[in-house]
């Protein structure tokens, strides 16, 4: 009876507090509070804007108010967020709630930007609630005397779990949770996630061993309205990137009629381009719009984010750098330029407008070529079906494990046998063999197999009592500075010669520039004056300049989206098309139909096109750029097995091209052969340069596992002598330690991520079950044209490209005319 009364107490206080603000809890919040009170761990699934933070956070407060005696002094709740910028705002909101409820808890943030004084104070006296990134949690675990921090800890909440799952940061979380759970049995762990395609798996990864666990799914749904921006007329031969300029005139009024907009682009160079386009189209935007991407200096980005939440900016042109993060209340319009590549990403971006729970999120879609309008139709269907992508959790990431083991050794040590059990309890390392564990321990203690070339290696030492610890201060410092799994390209800061930082640009881009060359960054034309120690000194300039093409901006189309895309395209030419995007595209679709074919859902289209330029074979799996890269190499390899021929390749998200200057003789039967599911992976391995791909993957692995040092302490010259490139280490290990566990990981990552083995197999199974449509033509078709253009883009400078394309279009038009 008394317990019951007390249980009500905290709940009533929170309910009153909410009521005073005119709010009532959602059902999923109430359920979370109840389950938390009964010592459950769990995972809350709710869309953004519905108070998912308060589901878990208030649960802890309620439980505290119900049983204050059960809570000790010091840290009670650890809240993990993927972004530093989120932490600050969340902490403020939490502190406000605590204050106005009338509790005396203190909420603080701790991450890479927190100053040393605060950190030292925290280490002495922890706040009640601490917001951390995965990296800063690991740094706490690396501190001597770490046990003091966690003695009163009741709960660890992992916010935006969907963002962390599927990356090595997710593995960091798994390891830290497993370790802490093993030390503090009563610890509750709660995840908070948006909807993804594999929620049950997401919970297994977060809570692999919890007995009392629950998944709470909010019934509330965010409504999304998708509004395509149509060009005035359909271009029958579309090409990527070209439409933007024409559509900017239609985007300006959208921005003008909104309070505040975010314009999302897919790459940094695209965002730079759109910033310029908008300024040219509407010069009054000067000072009212800003550019936000990961190469722009952090203080400037912060300023932009603040200005955006204060409603001082009319629009921000952004990349995925603004996908996540704090809510910008004034933003009422989102504009997506080009394919969003995935359903989840599209919905997430849409969700950045229309914040209050029942408001509709409106997103305008600006196609970069007219075919992308089919994608709008596909997206609508996918959103309706809630077909959100999966996030594949990473497994057996030994680089992360090695780093973690040193972290634990550093903060007080561990016993190998106990640790093995803890590690094998995680989802990521469930299938780790005893032999693999033995190798991991060897790697951190003696460098490799005993007696094989690793004299004088000391990282972790075994003490007499069996504890594995780090003794050397130098190694400890180096390790602490390099905790984390985010590996950045070598970046150079860009600074005005008169002072003031502008941003960061990849070193390889700058290394290609000569003094006096001009390039664009943060919306300005800059002239390179000098390069000094990893800083590029520049001055303002004007005139034509090159936009850096940053690596890694090219995300492939997701499997979910490509499924709906194929479906929509198949339906597009059937009589009585209702959907306005498809109706609009009729001229293009009919041309495709007339000169070639539009593949139905159970068909697979191959076009064999002979132009003056040479011989082209186009195939359309609609599986995304990455898979197409692998497929192109495979098909080229299989054809060249039939008879000697060499190809160059090009691809986009819809299909790929094999180009040759000799005739591609391929009968329908032979075509069927080269598309066969038989011996698939065997042929893939023969057709690609797996070693080269593994070498590229090894770059991150080498940094994470500590073989390549990213951050040095101090600036002493002697540190330079510790630098070796990952490529070099890869070569040495391939030659002298071919069974090295990190090499094996590199090859495994190639197969799982680069080749996406399961998706590749599924694609070939689908193709093999399809009817193959093999068409011959003497001119480019609407489907093939964008691929061809993309292949030119790679080999030409941008001015040349424009001319070449125009010529090609003219030629193609001339050739088609007589037949019309």
């Amino acid at each position, binding site marked *: 009876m008394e317990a019951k009364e007390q249980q009500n107490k905290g709940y009533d206080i929170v309910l009153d507090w909410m009521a005073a603000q005119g709010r009532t809890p959602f059902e999923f919040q109430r359920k979370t509070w109840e389950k938390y009170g009964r010592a459950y761990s769990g995972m809350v699934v709710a869309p953004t804007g519905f108070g998912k933070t308060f589901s878990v956070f208030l649960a802890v407060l309620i439980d505290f108010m119900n049983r204050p005696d059960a809570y000790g002094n010091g840290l009670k709740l650890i809240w993990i967020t993927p972004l530093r910028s989120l932490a600050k705002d969340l902490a403020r909101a939490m502190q406000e709630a605590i204050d106005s409820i009338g509790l005396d808890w203190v909420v603080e943030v701790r991450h890479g930007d927190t100053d040393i004084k605060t950190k030292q104070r925290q280490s002495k006296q922890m706040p009640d609630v601490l917001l951390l990134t995965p990296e800063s949690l690991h740094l706490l675990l690396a501190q001597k005397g770490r046990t003091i921090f966690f003695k009163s800890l009741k709960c660890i909440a992992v916010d935006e779990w969907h963002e962390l799952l599927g990356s090595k940061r997710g593995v960091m979380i798994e390891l830290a949770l497993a370790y802490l759970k093993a030390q503090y049995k009563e610890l509750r762990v709660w995840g908070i996630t948006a909807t993804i395609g594999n929620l049950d798996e997401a919970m297994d990864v977060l809570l692999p061993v919890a007995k009392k666990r629950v998944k709470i799914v909010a019934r509330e749904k965010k409504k999304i309205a998708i509004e395509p921006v149509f060009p005035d007329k359909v271009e029958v031969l579309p090409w990527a990137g070209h439409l933007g300029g024409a559509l900017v005139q239609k985007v300006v009024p959208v921005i003008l009629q909104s309070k505040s907009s975010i314009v999302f682009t897919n790459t940094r160079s695209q965002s730079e381009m759109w910033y310029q386009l908008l300024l040219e189209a509407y010069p009054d935007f000067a000072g009212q719009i800003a550019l936000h991407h990961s190469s722009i200096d952090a203080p400037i980005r912060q300023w932009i984010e603040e200005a955006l939440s204060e409603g001082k900016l009319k629009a921000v042109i952004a990349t995925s750098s603004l996908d996540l993060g704090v809510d910008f209340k004034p933003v009422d319009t989102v504009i997506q330029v080009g394919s969003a590549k995935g359903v989840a990403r599209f919905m997430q971006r849409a969700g950045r407008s229309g914040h209050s729970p029942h408001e509709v999120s409106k997103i305008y879609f600006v196609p970069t070529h007219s075919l992308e309008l089919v994608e709008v139709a596909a997206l609508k269907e996918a959103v309706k079906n809630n077909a959100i992508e999966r996030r594949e959790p990473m497994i057996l990431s030994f680089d992360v494990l090695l780093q973690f083991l040193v972290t634990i050794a550093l903060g007080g040590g561990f016993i190998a046998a106990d640790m093995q059990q803890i590690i094998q309890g995680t989802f990521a390392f469930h299938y780790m063999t005893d032999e693999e564990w033995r190798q991991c321990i060897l790697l951190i203690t003696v460098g490799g197999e005993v007696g094989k070339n690793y004299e004088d290696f000391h990282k972790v030492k075994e003490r007499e009592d069996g504890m594995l610890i780090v003794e050397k201060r130098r190694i400890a410092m180096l390790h602490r500075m390099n905790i984390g799994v985010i590996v950045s390209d070598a970046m150079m800061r860009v600074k005005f010669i008169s002072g003031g930082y502008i941003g960061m640009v990849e070193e390889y881009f700058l290394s290609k520039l000569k003094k006096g060359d001009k390039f664009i960054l943060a919306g300005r034309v800059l002239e390179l004056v000098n390069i000094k120690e990893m800083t590029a000194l520049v001055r303002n300039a004007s005139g034509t300049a090159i936009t850096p093409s940053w690596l890694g901006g090219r995300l492939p189309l997701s499997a979910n989206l490509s499924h709906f895309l194929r479906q929509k395209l198949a339906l597009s030419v059937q009589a009585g098309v209702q959907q306005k995007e498809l109706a609009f595209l009729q001229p293009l679709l009919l041309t495709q139909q007339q000169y070639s074919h539009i593949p139905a859902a159970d068909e697979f289209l191959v076009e064999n096109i002979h132009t003056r330029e040479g011989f082209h074979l186009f195939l359309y799996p609609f599986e995304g750029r990455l898979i197409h890269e692998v497929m192109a190499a495979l098909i080229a390899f299989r054809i060249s097995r039939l008879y000697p021929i060499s190809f160059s390749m090009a691809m986009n998200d819809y299909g790929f091209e094999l180009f040759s200057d000799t005739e591609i003789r391929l009968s329908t039967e032979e075509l069927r052969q080269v598309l066969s599911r038989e011996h698939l992976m065997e042929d893939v391995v023969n057709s690609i340069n797996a070693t080269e791909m593994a070498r590229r993957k090894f770059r991150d692995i080498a940094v994470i596992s500590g073989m390549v040092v990213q951050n040095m302490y101090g600036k002493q010259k002697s540190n330079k*002598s510790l630098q070796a490139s990952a490529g070099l280490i890869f070569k040495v290990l391939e030659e002298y330690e071919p069974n090295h566990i990190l090499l094996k990981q590199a090859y495994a990552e190639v197969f799982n991520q680069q080749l996406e083995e399961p998706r590749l197999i599924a694609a070939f199974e689908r193709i093999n079950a399809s009817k193959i449509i093999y068409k011959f033509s003497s001119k480019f078709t609407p489907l093939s044209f964008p691929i061809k253009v993309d292949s030119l883009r790679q080999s030409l400078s941008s001015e040349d490209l424009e001319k070449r394309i125009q010529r090609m279009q003219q030629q193609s038009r001339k050739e088609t005319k007589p037949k019309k």
Partner: protein
Amino acid sequence: MSLKQETVFFGRQQLILTNERALFWEKQQMLVLSDLHLGKAEHFRRNGIALPSQPGKDDLQRLEGLILHFKPRHVLVVGDLVHAGANNEVALFGRFTAGFPGVDFLLIKGNHDRFPGDLLPELGIRAVYDELVIDTLRFIHHPEGHRPGLYTISGHIHPGVAVRMPAKRVIHFPCYALTEDQLILPAFAKFTGTDTRSLPRRARCYAFYEAGIFEVPQH
């Protein structure tokens, strides 16, 4: 690895470039090499990065092979003999030189060669120079400066060259880089990267690999 060689004329001297990262100057009976970086792997290991010591041992074995083949009177290291101070791997070199009492080991000081002077006799090095002129050739670690009438041989930058192969592929090779008055040696140590960007303009490159050495066609 099998020894392959290519004869060039540089500074009015006939030099034999080998694919084993050293050149032989027959007239002076001198084997010339650069950037041995002794003890590099061990330096890494001492700082917690587990690299095998075998590559360093292989370097010395290759040097032994070259000495047995050319039977030089002098072996000249054009800088960066040692990677980062004395350690066990460096000490191995002392034992190595002791095995060739008839050979005169000389060193041009490189930027990595920071060690106490008394280490030199221990390593079997007879003399160390900042710069050394023999006949028409001038040896200095950094490929800098110019002295009229002299032809410079140096190391330091670990030259490499990108070679365009059929089917749009590009492969990087370590190389010797030659101009009219300058020759840059490849790094003798195998566990080193290459720099393809800092070569002198219009340098002729002799690239090499396990089984051969070839002049890279100029474009």
